[in-house]
């Protein structure tokens, strides 16, 4: 069946490098002696620890709970003893530390009670489903890590008609979703049915990039087997960033999500295929999100492969299981080469967001120096948001940040297409991040100044009121005294 597809603006074609991590079969990563679990592996408020140092925990046990609506709990990814609660280095572009719970594993990998009792999701009410998803700490596994339970709670004003499952995986090197779709296609479809029920979407489209024919075939087979005509498989052209949420929605539904808006505004909920499987595991087996598939790949590892890694596993342990480093001075990137973040070292833990550990050889020579912008407009032609990067660059480098904001710098999704096509080798994305940071700082300052101005005015008013009241008090006895004095 051929279905209609649409196009998103811009985009570029990139070499895939996908085959290198697909030659070895998917395997479980070995349990490391220590796990470091960040309390904030999602968008929203950090989870709060409910365990103490020295306490023993079992696999799947809640160790930090979500108190806010937009938050997600954290569970022990194996059994062992809590040996530390405090700040650890985490995978973050800033390289800063963040609160984490450290567990010394006991090697027994014992499950907590209550897990693994299979339930039929159809027997559960939508509220039960939602609370299970919420309690399982499920977040978007495509990289944005937004708490899924929130996304799966539609509001009546915005009815959802289409569920889009994202199996595009457009970044070079990464194959974790590809492997997931090949090995658990039936679960993707079953997960899709659960999600469809939750959001009330009549149809579901699974978007898969054309460079993954095996995954698409596996899913098509699963759809046939499930005799479900509500789930469709859409093979989308291999154009980066087709896996961006708004880009994929455009490609498979023709709808454009409003700027700064949500997919729900056009009747769509979009989730990663891995999230769908995690949801299924949560509702059927009551299993929290404690592991994920991580692609360990790149020219810098000996045997690139995909590993099912417990959350909190140090990157170094995964690299060791991928044959170790193949280069002397590796550069580690978490995520893909276009939008990933550089890791300060291999001691950092895998989080719910870690889809890939890319190991490259650190550049031996300085990068080609940037030349002046010749305004060729290649960047604008490549931009999936239809921004004018040449204008944004001009304003960012001359510190005209208000102009950059006017030219919609905050709409930039930092996909890196502009920088990739730039003939002058200008690090455009770095400039745009810089402009965004400066604008955010200025906004904070403005906010602060506004608050202190209000405080000052309120104090002024209070002082005036008090003075007036004092004057009143002084006057009143005077008035009562005056007649007496006169008389």
């Amino acid at each position: 069946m051929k279905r209609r597809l649409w196009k998103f603006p811009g985009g570029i074609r990139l070499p895939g490098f996908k085959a290198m991590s697909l030659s070895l079969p998917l395997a479980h990563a070995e349990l490391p002696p220590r796990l470091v679990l960040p309390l904030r592996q999602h968008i929203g408020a950090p989870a709060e620890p409910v365990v103490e140092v020295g306490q023993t925990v079992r696999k799947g046990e809640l160790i930090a709970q979500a108190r806010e609506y937009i938050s997600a709990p954290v569970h022990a990814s194996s059994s062992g003893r809590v040996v530390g609660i405090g700040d650890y280095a985490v995978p973050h572009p800033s390289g800063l530390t963040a609160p984490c719970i450290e567990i010394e594993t006991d090697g027994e990998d014992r499950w907590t009670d209550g897990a693994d009792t299979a339930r039929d999701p159809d027997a559960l009410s939508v509220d039960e489903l939602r609370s299970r998803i919420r309690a399982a700490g499920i977040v978007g596994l495509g990289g944005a890590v937004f708490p899924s339970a929130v996304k799966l709670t539609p509001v009546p004003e915005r009815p959802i008609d289409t569920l889009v499952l994202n199996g595009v995986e457009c970044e070079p090197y990464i194959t974790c979703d590809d492997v997931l779709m090949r090995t658990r296609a039936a679960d993707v479809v079953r997960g899709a049915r659960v999600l469809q029920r939750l959001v009330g979407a009549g149809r579901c489209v699974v978007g898969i990039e054309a460079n993954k024919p095996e995954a698409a075939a596996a899913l098509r087979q699963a759809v046939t087997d499930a005799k479900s005509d509500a789930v469709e498989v859409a093979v989308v052209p291999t154009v980066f960033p087709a896996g961006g949420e708004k880009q994929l929605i455009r490609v498979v539904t023709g709808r454009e999500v409003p700027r700064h808006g949500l997919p729900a505004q056009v009747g769509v909920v979009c989730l990663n295929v891995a999230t769908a499987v995690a949801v299924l595991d949560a509702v059927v087996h009551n299993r929290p999100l404690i592991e994920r598939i991580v692609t360990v790949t790149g020219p810098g590892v000996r045997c690139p492969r995909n590993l099912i890694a417990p959350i909190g596993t140090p990157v170094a342990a995964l690299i060791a299981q991928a044959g170790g480093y193949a280069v002397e001075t590796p550069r580690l990137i978490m995520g893909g080469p276009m939008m990933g973040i550089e890791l300060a070292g291999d001691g950092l833990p895998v989080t719910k967001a870690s889809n890939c550990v890319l190991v490259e050889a650190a550049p031996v020579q300085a990068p080609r120096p940037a030349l002046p912008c010749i305004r060729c407009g290649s960047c604008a032609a490549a931009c999936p948001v239809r921004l004018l990067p040449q204008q944004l660059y001009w304003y960012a480098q001359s510190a005209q940040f208000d102009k950059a904001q006017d030219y919609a710098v905050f709409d930039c999704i930092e996909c890196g297409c502009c920088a990739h096509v730039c003939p002058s080798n200008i690090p455009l994305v770095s400039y745009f991040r810089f402009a965004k940071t400066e604008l955010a700082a200025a906004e904070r300052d403005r906010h602060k100044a506004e608050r202190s101005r209000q405080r000052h005015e309120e104090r002024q008013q209070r002082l005036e009121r008090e003075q007036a009241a004092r004057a009143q008090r002084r006057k009143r006895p005077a008035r009562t005294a005056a007649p007496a004095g006169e008389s």
Partner: protein
Amino acid sequence: MTAAVGSPFITPAGRVSAVMRQVLYALVPATAVYVYWFGWGVLINLMLASVTAVVAEALMLWVRRRPLGLFLADGSALVTGVLLGLALPPLAPWWLAVLGTAFAIVAAKHLYGGLGFNPFNPAMVGFVLLLISFPKDMSMWPDPVSPQLHALGFLDAWHAVFAGYLPGGAGVDAVSSATPLDAVRTGVGLGHAVDAIRKGDVFGLFGGTGSEWVNLALLGGGLWLLWRRIVSWHIPVALLATLALLAGAFHLLSPERYADPAFHLLTGASVLGAFFIATDPVSAATTPRGRLLYGAGIGAFTYIIRTWGGYPDGIAFAVLLMNLAAPTIDAYTRPRLFGQVGSS
């Protein structure tokens, strides 16, 4: 900030030098045709302008304390030199090419801040300087049908360019004639019909003898650049379409007074201008709709100047006029953002 902070980590695909190199490749066939019809003077102009461009560029980079190797390697100065060299009349005195190119590089490019910062197309600034200052030398075009011209060898042409007269002692005007655009302008001014004027030797099948083939070769090179995605189609298509539309409208109105569209497209610097000069990214508009407007503006001004202005060709002036308008055009033609509803 010259090094990237954070993603993307993948090596960028393009290079300025590759862009410039392909522009030069695209000019090779047309240059060969040009030499075939107009003699060795074409090559001498190219050599003079290229050498001057590179020397002037190096000098200015040194004065401005810029990394010499890095900026010379971008090839932009060479492109300016080659374009100006192609635009000058072959057999013109040597100092014309040298002066024009030096002015283009020193004043129009580096005094404004060098590569990427010049508001005007440097080659056209150099060309217009020469056109205004030395109108006589700039209108001395070799006659492509003169047997004398084709008898000149490379060294003879060299002699003419540096000594100012032909080896036999005759002036360069002995092998020169009015250009087709000039002939039509003058002829129509005298009340002759375009058809009658075009019976002359310098007129070929659609445009000028020889120059029409140069223009067709340039068109081939230009299409190759489009195919290679070195230039976008917007500017050349808008420019040539506007020129053709205006020429067509007036030709329909009065065929005796106004030449037909094919003549306008294949004479003078129309094709060179459309694909190689107006598309200079630094001085052009950059938004898709802006490029259409920009190209259309150059096409319109070119027609107006050719038909009613004081110069036979108008590409250079039209390009400079639209260079002035480019920033404004860009500001008013911002594309609709992805996800932007309505207009903002």
